């Protein structure tokens, strides 16, 4: 297990390094931030001074070397726009995005798995067909449009919930969170649903397909032949088997939810990392973009690592092959 873990961490580090090169090069070629940063009336000397201050006059490999050296010390550069460390700016926004993503994940898992299993157990029932029909809608309607529709119905027509912003926040474990106050919660509901709908549909379909497959296995029939209650057959024998693929998807999707909640954050004016990224791209705030992408890579790689560990807890057969490997 430990050997496996060490190897797995090594692979993750390689992935992070490869991404660092790609991200740095990619951002380097987007455009010259100086054009956006200095005022149009600035003199040649002022522009040259800015270029030198930002270190943009050095050759690419030197810039990259400095970037890596600083990154290793936890410094991802200073924002051109805000004049503060990029990482700090992003970390300020991280709790908002994390909260949104986690609530959305809880919604999609908490609703998606039961609905999917239900539809898988009774594929021909009206409820089963309705669930599947609904999931196709959740799957295929564009995210931003769903968000706008939610605002239209619940904020504009019914007036039940606010249309945007984060509302009142309280301190919880050193982070600002919304879900502990009613005002915050009411701001959180719509964006969380918006972010959750797609993943929920994905989980419903996955859970249904796997439930149908597992139900045909002999061990489910054998469990019934042992006289177990249908409840136990489904909750223990079926559920534990379908959780393996579901956990993979949850892991992958949590990463992408944290990283790319951009659309939802934009539609609902949620002050998270996604919105920051859009703003930074518009301003060509290179360090923030790089820091954001690097952090995203770290989050996704970290979650994948975690998923692999959870896997081995769920499936004893994986544990065995790890020992050998």
């Amino acid at each position: 297990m430990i050997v496996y873990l060490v190897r797995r961490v090594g692979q993750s580090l390689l992935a992070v390094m490869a991404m660092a090169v790609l991200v740095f090069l990619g951002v380097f070629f987007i455009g010259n931030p100086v054009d956006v940063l200095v005022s149009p009336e600035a003199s040649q000397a002022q522009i040259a001074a800015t270029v030198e201050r930002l270190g943009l006059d050095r050759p690419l490999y030197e810039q990259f070397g400095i970037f890596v050296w600083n990154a290793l010390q936890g410094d991802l550069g200073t924002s051109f726009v805000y004049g503060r460390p990029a990482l700090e700016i992003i970390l300020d926004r991280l709790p908002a995005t994390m909260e949104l993503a986690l609530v959305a994940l809880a919604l999609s898992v908490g609703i998606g798995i039961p609905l999917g299993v239900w539809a898988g157990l009774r594929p021909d029932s009206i409820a089963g067909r309705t669930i599947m029909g609904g999931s196709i809608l959740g799957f295929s309607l564009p995210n931003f449009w769903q968000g706008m529709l939610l605002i239209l119905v619940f904020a504009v027509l019914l007036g039940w919930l606010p249309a945007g912003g984060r509302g009142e926040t309280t301190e919880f474990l050193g982070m600002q969170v919304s879900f502990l106050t009613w005002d915050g919660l009411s701001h959180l509901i719509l964006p969380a649903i918006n972010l959750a709908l797609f993943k929920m549909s994905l989980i419903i379909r996955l859970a249904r397909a796997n439930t149908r497959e597992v139900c045909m296995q002999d061990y489910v029939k054998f469990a019934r032949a042992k006289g177990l209650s249908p409840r136990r057959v489904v909750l223990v024998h079926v559920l534990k088997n379908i959780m393996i693929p579901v956990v993979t998807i949850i892991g992958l999707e949590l990463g992408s939810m944290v990283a790319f909640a951009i659309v939802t954050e934009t539609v609902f004016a949620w002050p998270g990392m996604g919105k920051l990224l859009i703003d930074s791209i518009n301003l060509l705030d290179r360090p923030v973009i790089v820091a954001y992408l690097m952090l995203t890579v770290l989050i996704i790689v970290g979650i994948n690592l975690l998923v692999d560990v959870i896997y081995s807890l769920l499936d004893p057969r994986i544990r065995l092959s790890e020992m050998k490997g």
Partner: protein
Amino acid sequence: MSALLDVCDLQTHFFTRDGVAKAVDKVSFSLEKGQILGLVGESGSGKSVTGFSILGLVDPPGRVAGGQVIFDGTDLIAGGEPVMRSLRGKRIAMIFQDPMMTLNPVLRIDTQMVETVRAHENVSKAEALRRCREALVQVGISSPDERLKSYPHQFSGGMRQRVAIAIALLHKPDLIIADEPTTALDVTIQAQILSEVQKLCAQSGTALIWITHDLAVVSGLADRLAVMYAGRIIEDGPTAAIIANPRHPYTRGLIDSVPQGKRHGAMLTQIKGMTPSLLNLPQGCKFAPRCPRADAACQVEPALTPAGPDRQVRCHHPHADHEATP
């Protein structure tokens, strides 16, 4: 003494898009306490479905369409799911064909055994574990404590089948339905499991329905045989009598296709053709198209008629006693 199990005109149909497949068509047999019945037939003859029908474990689109299954005085079909569930694993246990598939791969053996005990009896976990250990020892598994903490993939096929048998024995059932439990195993393990099961059943007076396509296996084990073809029983009676004197041409064909030492070097006889599709059965006798004795009379389906002491056969032209194979 009334029979332990009385299956009467059991019908199990599969309602498919292409029509109704009558997998089990008016099958009747009965079983005394402690008796061993061999249910023999080729693939698709309905023998496994018969077994599953008794316990109400037929998966859709199949369902029991008629008949009675009377177990110890209770009609299981009329009683429905609640009655069946209270008996499953408790008084009627089942062993499946493929031991690689019958144990849940992600649950430990102790979980899978303890839940069986606790599904029917309100006992403490420790007591349940003690009984599981006992059952494992009974089926010849050494160091049961260690084995209980293992996962199915850490076991060989034979070991898994022993575990499945141990699970079946947990409640000392009155009847075990074994669906080709040795087919997927090595020949040596097959023999071990066979003698083990025979011994255990004799010890506890458990009746057994042994479903198989292998006459050689069942002839040394069963008290009675019922031969199935295309969803119907075509011959039944005491094992020794049927093996010595098969009346139905199909049974004779099955027996002749088992290799025997005395015919060393000779070609094996085979039954020509293959089992008909259940969706497209021939008129009259279902075996007629493959039967060397078929004639015009076989256009009408024969009924099961008495053929000697305690025997029945469904044929217009049954073989006589000790008639040589043509």
